């Protein structure tokens, strides 16, 4: 099995290539998608300002209050249905799901998260409607049909929660026993000192995590990659807005990360 994470940047720029290519690969895939950029557009249209939390170590995460959660669920589910509709037109039987469907992805609300506030001080704040994934029902995600999973989980008490798409892809890969994880965004892979890194092992990822070029989204992505290769998966960080992006990634084009 292969887990293909389609980043929000791919969906906002041009999802046509990855959708066409899924027609060649869907029989052994599970798709997880993002939607950050579209959610921001929706929030803007609704007069909401995206806010972020900065955590010790520099990672940032979206501050998800009640109104933001609404915009988030609406935005990612719109993208989910757009993907599924386009897949149906190229003959791929696809079932779009949130984690709430069949409770396939359960999470616990992050009640306490550590942030670095405006004054540079560490503080424990309420994590809003963000969740830490506690379980994924892998057996419900195996094709056919191709499952297309939005980054939404459900809590024990029936609340929808925002979860990070890359982390969800990792947990899904673990749950279905996938050997490969393909992370598609609108860049060719990991760039260090202006150069594409074509091959990495776990040690290399640990080093890269300390590199000054690795910040924000890429830092989070590499943490996920590290966890994946430590579980023995092969990970490719690759471009999703080019022709046949899944085929390219499976040939190792982009940044190929292997456990050894």
């Amino acid at each position, binding site marked *: 099995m292969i887990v293909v994470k389609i980043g929000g940047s791919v969906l906002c720029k041009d999802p046509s290539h990855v959708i066409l290519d899924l027609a060649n690969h869907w029989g052994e895939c599970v798709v997880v998608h993002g939607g950050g950029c579209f959610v921001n557009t929706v929030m803007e249209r609704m007069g909401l300002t995206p806010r972020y939390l900065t955590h*010790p*170590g520099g*990672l940032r995460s979206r501050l998800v209050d009640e109104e933001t959660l609404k915009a988030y669920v609406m935005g990612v589910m719109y993208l989910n249905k757009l993907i599924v509709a386009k897949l149906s037109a190229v003959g791929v039987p696809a079932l779009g799901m949130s984690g709430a469907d069949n409770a396939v992805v359960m999470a616990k609300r992050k009640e306490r*998260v550590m942030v670095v506030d405006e*004054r540079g001080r*560490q*503080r*424990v704040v309420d994590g809003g409607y963000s969740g830490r994934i506690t379980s994924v029902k892998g057996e419900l995600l195996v094709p056919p049909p191709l499952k297309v999973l939005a980054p939404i989980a459900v809590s024990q008490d029936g609340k929808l929660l925002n979860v990070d798409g890359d982390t969800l892809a990792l947990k899904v890969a673990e749950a279905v026993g996938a050997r490969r994880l393909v992370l598609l965004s609108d860049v060719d892979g990991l760039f260090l000192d202006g150069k594409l890194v074509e091959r990495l092992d776990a040690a290399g990822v640990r080093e890269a995590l300390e590199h000054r070029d690795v910040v924000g989204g890429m830092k989070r992505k590499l943490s996920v990659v590290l966890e994946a290769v430590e579980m023995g998966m092969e990970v490719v960080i690759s471009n999703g807005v080019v022709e046949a992006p899944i085929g390219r990634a499976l040939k190792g084009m982009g940044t190929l990360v292997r456990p050894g």
Partner: protein
Amino acid sequence: MPSLACSVCGADVDVPSDVMDGEIVSCPSCGTKYIVRISDGQMLLEEFKGDVEDYGE
């Protein structure tokens, strides 16, 4: 600068005068970490047990 007693060793734990709810402070004597909790003008120290998401850093 206000201070509160460390519940482990009894030493004074200093709290910044502009402290905000949730801030992390440490006992200068035994090193125990606390979350400063402020509600209704009352200030309390809650032991920091580490059950807080720190995004793996």
